[in-house]
Every structure is written in C-alpha cells, then in structure tokens.
C-alpha cells in the first residue's frame, strides 16, 4: 500500500492550495508553467461542474429516479487532470466511476444517467465524435484494461502513433481502481501492452477503498511499483492536485504517443462519498479518516490556489452558477426520460439477423398485443 505521503509523490499544490512542489514534481514544472490562466480556470470549472452533477445524481437516486449511483465525489482532480492532458485523437477507456472523464470529453451526462436508471447498458456511442472517443463503462472490473491494450495494439499496427507528428499521434488511457488492480486481466493487459509497446497510459485511481475493503488488502506495497516489473515507467501522483495530475498524465501520454511504450500512473485520491448509493461507509471506515481527506479536497485546494493568484469572486460565482444550471438541466432531463420498447431487447444482440431473435421478438409483440386486445 502506498502511504498517502510517500516520498515518491508528485505534488505541486499543497492541501491548502499553496504552490509547494515536492522534489519529484520538479521535472514536471515546465508543463505546469505552460498552462494559461484559462487552462487553470477550465480545470477548476470542470471539477465544480461535474461535482454538482454528481451530487444531483445522488439526489436523483435517493428520489428513486436511478437504480444506483456511484459518486465520483473527491476524485475530480485525478480525473480532470488526466483527461485535460489527452488530445482529441486519444481513446479513453473508463472503468465505471469516471463521470468527470466522460463528461469532460463530451459525453452527455444524461447518457450516464440512462445507464444508472436502467435504460441502457452502454449509454453512449463511442464511435460518435461528440463523445470524444470515450469508450463506455465496463462493470466487470479490470476486463476493459485488455480492451484498451488491444486498441493500443491496433494503433501500433495501423501506424496511428509514433509517426513523428505529435498532432497525429494517438494514445489510449485506461482508468481502473485499487481494487481492480488485483484482477488477473490487469496483469495480462500490462504484459501485452509491454510486449506490443502500446501507446498507453494505465491510470490507477487509488481512492483507498474497494467498497469496504481497504487498499492494504489488495497490496502491502505501493501499487505503482508493479509497473517496473513489466519494464514500464510509473509515477505516483497526488490525485487530489489537479495540476500534478495534469502534468504527469501529459508527460506520460506524450511519451506514449511518440512511441516510448506504455506508462503507469497511480493517483492517490479518496472516494469522499459512499461506494454507491447502496453503500453505507460508516460500516467500515472512521469519520476521522473521512475528515482527514476532506482537508485535501481537490476543489477547495484549487479554489485557494486560484484565489491566491487573484481569481475574482465573479469568476467563482459564475462557475457555481454554471454548475447549478448544469445539474438542474440533468435533473429536468432525467425526469423527462421515457421507457423502453420490448423490441430493443432483441435488436442488437447480433448485428446480423438471428432466428431466435426474430422468433422471440415476434412472440413478444404478439403476446403484448394480446393484452392490449384484451384491454380494448
């Protein structure tokens, strides 16, 4: 297990928002210096907006509008930092809590809502350019890491990376958790990634918990150290520091795109909320622990930093208003969501016609019609 203040940690902003790079952060500072004020404001805005959405979704679940909601609360900096380091041509493979990643890349939040409402398994179409090459969530933990590696192999085979032109080069980034890191598929994904030198970043959000199980049960030693065993460089970053998360992701993605092979990042963060709306974290963790992490809130940290740099009240107010409007819009659209036709169940099991689908869809239609007839 990585202690939250491991000396290998890359951190730029201290918990109170002061600019205080750790020794490991030094080499990333040029990347941070290159950020404009607008960039910094965007990072902040992303985090605030998606947190408002996330809270709204939690409320919606409580009101019975959703089957389930897995909050991203507390992990905004890790997600915004990494996703803002991607380029439009990159492909992103989230796990299932990457609401910040998905929406920042363009996924309509209502599509995530539809998944959690029981209206769709996938939610959005990753081949639609509007979704920024964000692949859909995968609920079988770790299994998508192999899809990301395979996609990266495709990039290698098709010459989509290491072309010498950074504007064309592509990369994949795959998100997974401390719990998922124990799965055999994650190992195999790393084996294949290193063998085929995929342009890939393994982005581990270590939020300290896998439901009720602490990360110490998954590993007694730092998870990022696993990468070295595959010959892959890795970086440990303070995942609640959006600037550090951005910088380490940017470097790793740039290197991967250019042909240097896969890289790993462990972002130390914290799941500030429940695992999902079905969960009661008081059963397994202390409020002391929760409070100590509340001190490291990624949004408060960036707020303090921007404030110290001179951001205005007007800016913060405007962001809060935008966030509230965003969340409101989600609520309104959620309440307006309709149902599902039975036929959708049969429509996409296969891409080509299949006799069982034809028969069973027909049977269902006739069967449903028989009730309609009876009621008429």
């Amino acid at each position, binding site marked *: 297990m990585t202690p939250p203040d491991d000396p290998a940690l890359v951190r730029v902003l201290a918990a109170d928002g002061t600019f205080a790079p750790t020794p490991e952060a030094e080499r990333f500072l040029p990347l941070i210096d290159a950020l404009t004020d607008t960039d910094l404001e965007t990072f902040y805005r992303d985090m605030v907006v998606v947190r408002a959405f996330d809270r709204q979704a939690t409320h919606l679940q409580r009101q019975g509008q959703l*089957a*389930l909601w897995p909050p991203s609360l507390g992990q905004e900096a890790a997600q915004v930092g990494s996703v803002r380091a991607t380029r439009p041509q990159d492909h992103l493979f989230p796990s299932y809590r990457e609401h910040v990643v998905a929406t920042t890349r363009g996924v309509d939040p209502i599509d995530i809502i539809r*998944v*959690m*409402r*029981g*209206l*769709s*398994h996938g939610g959005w179409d990753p081949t639609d350019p509007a979704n920024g090459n964000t692949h859909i969530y995968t*609920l*079988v*933990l770790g*299994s998508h890491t192999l899809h990301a590696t395979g996609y990266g192999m495709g990039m290698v085979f098709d010459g989509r990376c290491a072309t010498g032109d950074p504007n064309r080069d592509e990369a994949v980034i795959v998100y997974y958790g401390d*719990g*998922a890191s*124990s*799965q*055999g*598929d994650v190992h195999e994904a790393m084996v294949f990634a290193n063998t085929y030198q995929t342009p890939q970043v393994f982005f581990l959000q270590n939020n300290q918990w*896998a*439901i*009720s*199980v602490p990360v110490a*049960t*998954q590993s007694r030693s730092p998870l990022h150290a696993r990468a070295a065993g595959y010959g892959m460089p890795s970086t440990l970053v303070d995942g609640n520091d959006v600037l550090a998360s951005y910088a380490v992701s940017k470097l790793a993605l740039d290197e991967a795109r250019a042909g240097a092979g896969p890289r790993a990042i462990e972002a130390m963060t914290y799941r500030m909320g429940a695992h999902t709306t*079905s969960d009661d974290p008081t*059963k*397994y963790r202390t409020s002391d622990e929760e409070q100590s992490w509340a001190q490291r809130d990624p949004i408060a940290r960036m707020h303090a930093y921007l404030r110290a740099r001179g951001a205005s009240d007007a800016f913060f107010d405007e962001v809060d208003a935008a966030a509230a409007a965003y969340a409101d819009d989600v609520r309104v659209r959620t309440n307006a969501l309709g*149902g*599902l036709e*039975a036929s*959708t*169940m*049969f429509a996409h*099991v296969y891409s080509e016609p299949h006799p*069982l*689908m034809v028969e*069973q869809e027909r049977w*269902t239609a006739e*069967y449903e019609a028989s*009730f309609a007839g009876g009621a008429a």
Partner: protein
Amino acid sequence: MTGATSVQTMPFAKALSAGLRAAMASDDHVLLMGEDIGKLGGVFRVTEGLQAEFGDRRVLDTPLAESGIVGTAIGLAMAGFRPVVEIQFDGFVFPAFDQITTQLAKLTNRHEGALQMPVVIRIPYGGHIGAVEHHQESPEAYFAHTPGLRVVSPSTPNDAYWMIQDAIASPDPVIFLEPKAKYWLKGEVDTAERALPLHASRIARRGTDVTLVGHGAMVTTLLQAAALAESEGTSCEVVDLRSLSPIDYGPILDSVRRTGRMVYAQEAPGNVSVGSEVAATVMERAFFALESPVLRVSGFDVPFPPAKLEGTYLPDVDRILEAVDRALAY
C-alpha cells in the same frame, strides 16, 4: 430442542446466515471468503456479524479477484479447510470460471478419489431487483453442464437454512445459487430437523391437470400461477427442483405421469439450459404419458436487459399461464 420451539419465522437471508453460523460453529475449518463479506457483512448482509463472531481468519475480506478467491479456496480445501466462497453477484463469477471448471470440478477425479473438494460457491443470482448489468443473471446452465459439480438452489428460508449446511457438509464442490429476489422473503424455518436431503426435488403444491416445474425465484411465481389457474378451474402441481445437478426426477416423472402435461419455468436464457435438459429427459422417460410436449418458459436468449425491461424479460405469472393454456390446448 422440541419441535414446537424449533420453528421460527425469518427472512431467507437471515436463514442462510443462521445456517452459515451453525456450520461454522460445528467445524472450525469452515471458513468464509469473498469481497466485502467481513466488515460489511456482504452486499446482501448474509454474512453480517459473522466476522465479529468468528474472527478475520474465519471470515476473509479477500483481494478483489474471483479467480484468486476460488483458486485459493481450492488450496485451502487441500489443506483441510471447508471454504465457503461468496461471489458478489452472478455476473462476476466468470473470472473464476477456469478455476471452477478445469480445477474445482475435476480435482477429486484427477486425484482418483484421494482428495475431496468440499468447497461451496455461493452466488446471489437472478433478477427482480432492478439492478445494472451483470447483477441479475442466471448462470446455472454453465455449472449444471459441468461434471464434478453439484448445483443447488433453495427457494424458501427453510431450505436456505438446511441446504447451506448440507452443501458445506458435502465432500464435493457445490455451486449454491441464492435467488436474490427471495432474500427478504419470510418463512418458517425448523432448526431442529431437515425436511429433505440436499438433492431432492420437492412437491410444493399438489395438482392434477398440469405439472409446473422450476427453480429459484421462479418457484414463487409458479405457485402464484397455480393459485390463479385454480381460480380459473385448472389444477396445477408445482415442483421445486431444488437441486439442478443432479436432478431428482422421481417426483417430476411421477407428477407428469398423472397430469400428462408439464411447463418448466426459469429466468435463464432457454437455449441449452437446465429447462432444455429437464424437458428432454421428461419427454424421454415419460414419452407415452405425455399428452402435450413439455413447454418451457424462460428468459429470452438475449443478455439480461436494462432494468426497465426486466419485467418483460423475466417469466411472470401471465407467461406461465399462457404456456399452461397452450399445454392444455394440445
């Protein structure tokens, strides 16, 4: 304990929990393993309180890796333990499928009987809870097809209490399928005496016109269908399979020989399923007794749909009665 005091009413999940506790108390090498089963007591709270009672060497919150859980359970069984594994949801058993199929199921045979494999794999299964993908599936056919495994599914609190203990006592690996829709179902549990052996099927209701057979959560639905049918003048016998492998055909064949008609209900996709096997076998063994073919009411041959469609996907009373009508119309 006298019969009078030994009967208590409790929900299915509590009955299971009581059964686990009894097994753990009577053999200190019974050990529970799984994700979130210790401190949290499992996502369905079936193991609630057991870690506090028996310690964290008897109730293990394992790393998050199903192949690892089942694979190490096998090693523990080799070392003299009786591991009871919890898979968190039906759809997450597949990472462990290799260990279950190529190892757990075959090790006693591979050892020519020198090694027993008393491992129980508990899997909450089936729909009706409106959950997201992978949380509502019925994977029983995969296990029932696999030689070397025993597969059972209780449908009442009393069966939950006894069958989990019998499964743990079994020297063979048992896939123990818990119909999650029934966790909150209350019923009487007689803690003094087991009603039936682990692998017996059970007549849940007597009837004369059509035999309804099924397993898991479907048993309740079949009983509801039988009640409704009765009000419409059709008398249905209901058989709860209880054991999916091996299957106790005695009560089923006996019933079909009387009724001449049968409907099988299951939530799993029908193609190459437990229902296919029961239908084929009953038609083979009671060929001349049948006045209509054995009809099957199953989940459709599609991945379990988004929750808003589960009501359409899952066999319900109406679909069962529709099949009863078809059977009677032959």
